[in-house]
């Protein structure tokens, strides 16, 4: 018989303690299911619908696959490797980059974005359920009241699941994720029944810019943005992965391949029907029975995504003292309670979806670059785990009064560069954008500035514990040579 988890085990899973290998619950299969559950949500269809404004199927597929693969791999390197190796939350790891107090900066950025995402998903649940309700009762309602009521239901159900922790999320994904893959295939078949592949290739974008290259790069940029949108949560999730491989490669299955497939279904539907909202085209294309079933699954797909988002976000909020002291159930309740306020404005939330997406590329791309440069180049994959938590004699991660200005300055410079290259709201930008995108140059700038400041100022002052990382790496290599 399994015993009740001890309070320390619970602290490992829900709190800040590093998770031990024996406590980790996700192997490659389980984490792939979690990833698929995250990826196949209405957002991938909505991204596809947005793409249909600019590109056709062929160019949309190439741009999305390229953008999503690059971004998912880079963010997985920067977040999942250290978190799964040391069993620590991403935001504990970020203390080695932003400083112990400075970590609050990415946490606050992340929480703001996640309020938007969770509210968007809840509203999507509400819209899908509202359409099911209209179809079943044979009524046509334009009122938002039903949407709001169902969105609140999504929030309550999500809280009941996430309050019980990662094990319940695990079970939910084991059941829902395979059904969602089946649903994705059925949805594609529904579209294939109406249009053959050659017809799909001839669909024209709905509202493109005059320059084809610009449209293509906008699609690539949205692919990057959708990939980087996972930055806030992947480290928090992969601390529960049993191995580094189990924390890394499932990202390619879930938030890369499945997300791209979901996006393509949204793109085809958007091109065919001329509407980017998947909850609008399912019943007309699939008929009353299949359409309603698809809508129900889409609704539940959003719940799986909400639970994973809330788990990782609340874990990150524990970086801030007042939230650290709150019980897990109360913390998750508080987060969802605030989100509930947003769902009373469904049109504003739903209409600003693209803003959340572009915000992800603007901020999370540069954060990924800074993390990559710090962990792989400057620290050579060695961090002082004890110093992340405790006051050790040299206080390496205190930097300047708790803040690493190198990371803060690099992030600001890169974000400003992004805005100079592309306006993320209108998606119009400098000619440079048509060849380099906006996120990639911003990332290069972030990484370069961070490296320069660190090498020129941080390391010479003996801050950040970089010498210790290099010495430790040298010792390990020498030991290997001796063996």
């Amino acid at each position, binding site marked *: 018989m399994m015993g009740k988890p001890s309070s320390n085990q619970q602290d490992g899973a829900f709190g800040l*303690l*590093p998770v031990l290998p024996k406590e980790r619950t996700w192997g490659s299969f389980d984490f792939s299911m979690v990833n698929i559950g995250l990826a196949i949500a209405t957002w991938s269809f909505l991204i596809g619908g947005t793409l249909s404004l600019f590109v056709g199927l062929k160019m949309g597929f190439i741009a999305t696959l390229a953008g999503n693969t690059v971004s998912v*791999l*880079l963010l997985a390197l920067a977040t999942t490797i250290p978190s799964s190796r040391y069993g620590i939350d991403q935001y504990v790891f970020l203390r080695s980059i932003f400083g112990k107090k400075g970590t609050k900066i990415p946490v606050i950025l992340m929480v703001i974005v996640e309020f938007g995402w969770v509210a968007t998903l809840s509203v999507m649940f509400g819209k899908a359920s509202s359409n099911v309700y209209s179809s079943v009762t044979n009524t046509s309602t334009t009122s938002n009241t039903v949407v709001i009521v169902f969105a609140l239901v999504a929030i309550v159900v999500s809280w009941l699941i996430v309050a019980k922790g990662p094990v319940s999320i695990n079970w939910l994904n084991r059941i829902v994720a395979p059904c969602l893959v089946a649903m994705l295939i059925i949805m594609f078949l529904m579209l294939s029944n109406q249009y053959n592949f050659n017809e799909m290739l001839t669909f024209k974008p709905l509202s493109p810019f005059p320059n084809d290259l610009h449209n293509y790069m906008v699609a690539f940029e949205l692919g990057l943005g959708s990939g980087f949108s996972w930055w806030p949560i992947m480290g928090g999730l992969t601390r529960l992965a049993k191995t580094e491989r189990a924390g890394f490669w499932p990202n390619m299955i879930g938030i890369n391949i499945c997300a791209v497939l979901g996006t393509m279904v949204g793109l085809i539907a958007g091109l065919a029907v001329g509407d980017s909202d998947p909850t609008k085209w399912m019943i007309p294309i699939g008929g009353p029975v299949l359409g309603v079933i698809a809508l129900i699954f889409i609704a539940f797909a959003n719940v799986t995504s909400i639970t994973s988002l809330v788990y990782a976000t609340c874990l990150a909020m524990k970086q801030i003292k007042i939230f650290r002291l709150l019980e897990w159930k109360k913390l998750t309740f508080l987060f969802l309670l605030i989100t509930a306020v947003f769902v009373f404005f469904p049109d504003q939330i739903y209409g600003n979806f693209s803003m959340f997406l572009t915000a992800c590329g603007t901020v999370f791309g540069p954060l990924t670059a800074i993390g990559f440069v710090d962990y792989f180049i400057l620290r050579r994959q060695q961090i002082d785990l004890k110093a992340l*938590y405790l006051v050790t004699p040299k206080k390496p991660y205190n930097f300047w009064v708790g803040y690493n200005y190198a990371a803060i300055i690099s992030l600001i410079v890169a974000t400003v560069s992004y805005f100079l290259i592309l306006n993320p709201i209108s998606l119009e930008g400098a000619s440079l954008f048509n060849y380099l995108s906006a996120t990639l140059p911003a990332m290069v700038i972030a990484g370069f500035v961070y490296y320069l400041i660190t090498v020129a100022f941080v390391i010479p002052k003996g801050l950040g514990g970089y010498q210790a990382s290099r010495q430790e790496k040298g010792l390990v290599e020498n030991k290997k040579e001796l063996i």
Partner: protein
Amino acid sequence: MDTEEFNEDFSAELEKRIDVLTRSDSDVKRLGTVDYTFTGLFIVLSFVLLIWGWFA
């Protein structure tokens, strides 16, 4: 976060866990490290795909 903020139990548990995770024969270090060659290859292929798209 400073040591003073933790209670004794928490600090002791933390030290114990850090010890396990930083041991050279730690399960996590021994099992399942990622092959960066494939990671790099996928990134390069993605850029090749992107550039091909410019001309497609």
